[in-house]
């Protein structure tokens, strides 16, 4: 062992607990972690049953209550099309459509979706039979590394439905009218899906084509 002797394992348990719990000695300003000793244990998992309809297929799961919808899809149902980019609702890679609405599946517990109907990118189409939005992304090169792409595509499909349903956006000029189908509307509504490769310009064109906008 390289570090024996320097680095004594402590059984004292004198510290408060929490993520990367710490106490600092030797300085005046100490950083301390969160939580209190009495309640901070990881605890035994609580298992719960939940029934989902995923891409039209009934799925019965018995899972840890902590499991997010995203992890239920990826780790339990092996539907890895929905991506984990941040796990905190800050990137949109995990976007799926639940009962017709797009959501961040990372910020939702699977157990809260009893009976819900969930569409993932795998449910839109497959390599042999792409959904028109998937085909438009290929045609316009609306992706590069491909990691944000399933979320972009699920979002794009839902965005066109939202515009059709008359839901306004931040850039809608007149709130009392139906929002127009425009590039500006699409860009604003897609802004919850980050693409670090920077395919935005091409994505907007792909969505515009599916929406029937003139180039």
């Amino acid at each position, binding site marked *: *062992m390289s570090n024996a002797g320097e680095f004594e394992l402590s059984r004292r348990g004198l510290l408060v607990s929490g993520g990367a719990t710490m106490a600092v000695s030797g300085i005046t300003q100490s950083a301390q972690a969160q939580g209190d000793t009495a309640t901070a244990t990881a605890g035994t998992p609580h298992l719960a049953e939940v029934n989902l309809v995923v891409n039209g297929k009934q799925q019965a799961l018995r899972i840890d209550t902590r499991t997010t919808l995203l992890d239920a899809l990826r780790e339990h149902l092996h539907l890895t099309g929905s991506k984990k980019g941040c796990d905190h609702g800050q990137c949109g890679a995990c976007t799926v459509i639940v009962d017709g609405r797009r959501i961040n599946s990372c910020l939702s517990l699977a157990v809260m979706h009893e009976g819900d109907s969930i569409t993932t990118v795998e449910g839109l189409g497959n390599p042999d039979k792409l959904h028109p939005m998937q085909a438009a992304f290929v045609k316009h090169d609306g992706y590069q590394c491909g990691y944000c792409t399933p979320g972009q595509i699920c979002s794009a499909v839902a965005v066109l439905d939202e515009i059709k349903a008359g839901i306004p956006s931040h850039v809608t000029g007149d709130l009392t009218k139906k929002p127009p189908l425009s590039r500006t509307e699409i860009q604003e509504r897609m802004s919850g899906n980050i693409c670090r490769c920077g395919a935005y310009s091409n994505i907007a064109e792909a969505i515009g084509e599916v929406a029937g906008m003139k180039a």
Partner: protein
Amino acid sequence: MKFDSPAGDNPIDQLKVVGKPHPRIDGPLKTSGKATYAYEWKDIAPNPAYGYIVGSAIAKGRITSIDIDRAKAASGVLAVVTAQNAGKLSKGNFNTAKLLGGPEIDHYHQAIALVVAETFEQARAAASLISVDYKRGDGAFDLAKSMDSAKAPPEGWSGPADTAVGDFDSAFAGAPVQLDAEYYTPDHAHAMMEPHATIAAWQDDALTLWTSNQMIDWSVGDVAKTLGIPKDKVRMISPYIGGGFGGKLFVRADAILAALGAKATGRAVKIALPRPFIFNNTTHRPATLQRIRIGTGKDGVITAIGHESWSGDLPGGGAETANSQTRLLYAGANRMTRTRLSVLDLPEGNAMRAPGEAPGMMALEIAMDEMAEKLGMDPVRFRAINDTQVDPEKPERRYSMRQLTKCMEIGAEKFGWDGRNATPGTRREGRWLVGMGMAAAFRNSPVTKSAARVRLDKRGVVTVETDMTDIGTGTYTILAQTAAETMGLPIEMIEVKLGDSTFPVSCGSGGQWGANNSTSGVYAACMKLREAVTQALGFNPQDAVFADGKVRSGNRSAPLAQAAGSNGLSAEDFIEYGDLDKQYQQSTFGAHFVEVGVDAHSAEIRVRRMLAVCAAGRIINPTSARSQVIGAMTMGVGAALMEELVIDKRFGFFVNHDLAGYEVPVHADIPHQEVIFLDEVDPLSSPMKAKGVGELGICGVAAAVANAIYNATGVRVRDYPITLDKLIEKMPAIA
């Protein structure tokens, strides 16, 4: 195949497949969620365990004690790995700090423990039960304060720390028009969408890593070195990579700790770095302080140009050479550059898209704009009159090809540059002050060895195998185009397999060398396969023509598949280079044009139009090359307007360590982007006559945005990112 003389006519010049826009061949998989990224392999290990990493809570100091007992006792936990029980670990050649820290701590969020459990939820929960006592040490976290202690770094990829030609000091002192300005570029995060992730499994003493890595061979070597096992006992598989930008050039903690966790548990272990952990745990582009001095005659001809760059890194780390392009980009008889590196105890600095040039051009191209204004000269013209066809430090050494002025002139015309009012703050449209800016783009085009294997089977399908990676760059498609062109096949008859260390060693993805070198390696292997084909068919190799899935020689013709026989044919070769890149300076060039609007009241900045014109040799696939450039332009907008890893200089860490705090551009920030490629072939670069564009595209963008903001508002900001708080007090009075 050795490339040591200019390329003549060769099968690539047919341009039946190469040079044509082609949708990515991996597109249907990526758009349907069927491409398998590192964390997503399910059949390779039926019952993987999950790892969760604990990071250091201090930036510098030591662990005085660590209590893992409660974590070990927690539900579902299989093992806890720390530096104490991990066994002897070395440091990889490409790592600056250890990937498993303790007891010494080198930077914030350095990994110090791994919890492995049956489920992700259990591993994460147990990780929070590890208690650590630290003794905080003194660290240096402030680049500006460290400047006096900065030292000349050893000569690296970008050359020596100090360069000088002529007599810069006297020439600058005597120049009728002078600029002496300082610039700051902050630390940047790669922020690729796929977190660093690995699944590790041992079979006896052999380790397999399904991971996300740009440079397979480097990284196999570093895994072996870190773990102290032979290189041939490590296999790395990385066919799909959710973005890298330099952040996945090297082995990171996910790979090493997954291997250690798998060893400790006898199970396959999967780890993805949590997003809030990535910013301080992994590498970043270091901040730079730069001083630029330019002296010209009244005619605008540069007589003196000097560029100094300071950056910091952990002990043993490297400098961000923000002055490297200044040695090459503009003419001028008297020149100097100086690079200084100080020790900072921030997380490890390292390569990010166009290291050196990206931050260097952010400063230099503002300086050129400032100088043009001092001279009362149009910025395009000022650059054009200082263009050069030779290496300004070695005038006997020509550029292999250099069309900078043409890029600028075409861009100016297409963008409507003559509509720009040189007097800033004079164009108002509604609530917006509108301005235009431009900048040159420049990035070298390195050549390096790259190998591939090609197999022809009885169906007539050619399979390309190389450990080359596709990080979104379009590698799958351009390798297929190259093989299709060389073998005379439609692209549908080519299969490409990438990112597996059992395949021949390629150049990997970095430094915008991937496209030119990896396609050249495939070309070399295909030329060898052609020989094998003609031999198998008994054809004369001298006059054999490969076209339409057939081989013709004289009056004989046979389908390619026939040559394969039932066992198939295989060939392997590599491209290697002579000294053409020493004889000739090989670089890529471009021009960026940007129009911005700045809210006359709030000083919010929005980009309205963008154009890039690029001259980068033969463009193998205009579709994916264009995407590389627009992606780089987007990243450049981020660098201009929002991206900054903000340092808490008391505690020594990047405070905004998530994707809400570290803002990158979103859809609404990016207008329609135009890209024009000059029709260029460079026979001195490779048999492909190609170069790279992925990094060229980012060089200069941010400065073009900065110059547009200046043109819109009259406020010159030399300290990136250019956020509204830096404008607000100096904005023109509201009409």
